[in-house]
């Protein structure tokens, strides 16, 4: 038990080496992979999420915690697959065509990975054809789009329209984000949700999948 709380502490501190060593030793001690995931890695990440929300942790600290989380996940993945444990969901992310501002989108990607999501990042300047192709190929649960510029915001509306036209709208939930957006705009263009920042994006993704 104590080694699992050590893992959680190491996640919180972003101490990748300790996370890897302790995860391996927990496996050697025949602690079930699911227990390591839930009481070690996820427990640490939950604390990170809490303190990030209250402003006590900063983005760079959350990012290194996420990085440590991913390292732990890599070790656990083969064991979790044999136990048929699924990730909470699969999401495609992209910053829309005409826009190269991807810091926010990258943050969302890392935070989602930290929360156990499978993330397919399409990068920046992503047009509707690339989104459609990726949806067909990967069959994600979620599609996330970002835009920082008011001039590229309308792209989101066009991409959602294209997803509808292609008959794929029922298969995916769509979430949007970016500094100039708001809840109202998200509703107007027919998205399922809007997140103001990366920690809210994780909560939103979870709630959309469970909805």
């Amino acid at each position, binding site marked *: 038990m104590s080694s699992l709380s050590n893992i959680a502490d190491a996640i919180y501190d972003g101490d990748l080496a300790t996370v890897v060593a302790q995860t391996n030793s927990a496996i050697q001690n025949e602690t079930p992979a699911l227990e390591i995931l839930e009481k070690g890695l996820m427990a640490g990440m939950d604390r990170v999420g809490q303190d990030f929300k209250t402003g006590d942790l*900063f983005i*760079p*600290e959350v990012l290194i915690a996420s990085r440590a989380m991913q390292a732990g996940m890599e070790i656990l993945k083969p064991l979790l697959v044999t136990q048929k444990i699924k990730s909470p969901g699969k999401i495609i992310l992209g910053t829309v065509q005409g826009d190269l501002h991807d810091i926010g989108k*990258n943050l969302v990607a890392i935070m989602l990975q930290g929360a156990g999501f499978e993330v397919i990042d399409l990068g920046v300047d992503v047009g509707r054809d690339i989104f459609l192709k990726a949806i067909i190929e990967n069959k994600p649960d979620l599609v996330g789009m970002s835009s920082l510029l008011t001039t590229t915001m309308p792209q989101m509306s066009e991409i959602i329209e294209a997803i509808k036209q292609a008959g794929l709208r029922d298969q995916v939930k769509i979430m949007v984000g970016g500094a100039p957006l708001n809840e109202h705009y998200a509703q107007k263009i027919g998205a399922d949700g809007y997140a103001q920042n990366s920690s809210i994006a994780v909560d939103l993704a979870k709630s959309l999948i469970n909805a």
Partner: protein
Amino acid sequence: MKFELLSQQDLDRIDLESRQILGEVGVKINNMKARELFKDAGAKVDAETHMVWIPADLIEGALAKVSHHFNVWNRTGSTCYDLNNGKTYGHNVGGCVRIHDFDMGISRDATEQDLIKATTLIDALENIHVCRPVVYPQEFPAELRDIYTAACMLQYTNKPYGVSAYSLRNLDYILQLGSLVSGSYEAFLEKPFIWGSVCPASPLNYSESTTAILMKYAEIGLPVAIAPCPVSGGTSPVSLAGTLIQQNAEFLTGLILVQIINPGNEVKYTTRPIPMDMRTGTATFGSVELGLMSTAIVQLAHKYGICSDVYGLGTSTFAFDPQNGSEKALNALLPVLAGANLIAAAGLMEDALTSSYEQLVIDNAILGNIFRITRGINISNETNALDLIEKVGPGGNYLLEDHTRIFARQELFTPKICYRSGNQQYKEQGFTSITDAAHEQVQTILKNGAVRVVDEKIATQINVLLDEVKTTSK
């Protein structure tokens, strides 16, 4: 980085002309023993009018003797702070009669509970390094408030604090209280966690009692704050320069007396020069001239090599509004940029009549911002980050770099209670402004009530002594 408001030439002139006042106009010292000491030291005195004229060499001699330190200890005796070490320390306003009641939205008379809770709050605020009794509870007997507030301060904060005794007799009780905490009078004097404070009565007048108290501080070697409080236009010239000259003469008088009694005693330059509002006749703690004169006083203190303690976070309004924020920021920033050692008056509202828990928390954040400004821009291999800029390269980003994580907390000041776009917590909690966030922080810090920092035994001894004070004063 050091802001100079007055040129060296102007500063020298103020210094010289204030010495001229001491030599030619003189000061009224209503204390026979002090006049005798001045006379023995070479001053001309008049027994009938109580006037004392101080010659240049006596002034010069005292300035040569005065300590260039101002050492106060924390209450456990584990740390000594030299407040004249080149850094800036924050402290709160003292002696307000009212407190702003957040829930009722009004100012009301301060109670003992307010003093206790506010002291616990101050003990937790990181930018308030030393303190004063923030309110004088109105239910305490008027002539004993200095003793009662001392008893509260001693029990609820570990931070050093300033005492303004009402009389020699009251001072004696306050010293007894301090000795209870330290274990003995000798132990208390060896590591004093209080400094003594006196206010001469402007213009150019030391009362019998003020002088006696000042002399007692010097006799026992306590660090002393000399705090003239001239009201420009009322008790000093309306011109800022005239006020500066007069208050410097008043300050030097106290400093000289202290040095005659105890050469090398530590002295703090603590003037509060308050302009008068010419429409109402009130002393205005929010006027921008307060900050200007305070800045000049910092320069004068530095000229003499002694510790400066000035206003500060003054405001005239009773409201949490733009007037409040701008007056505080302007009046605090200027003297700090000039190198003030102590910046006073966190928690002050309504021209020092009112204090407030929320204002203490907000001012703690203003001080945090100001201290960040004083740290300036760090130029070094690590902060210039040439290697990093090369590593990340065009089109990359810095968020994932260790450099960002390590330096984020050093380079960027992140005030917890200030709203910044994207701060979801503000919205979730229904905050409409910094005042709501400050209120929430007050609630968090005080959620377990006031925290006594002395043990039960000492607390009991303090109460026994207070009972004695009450009985004998009837």
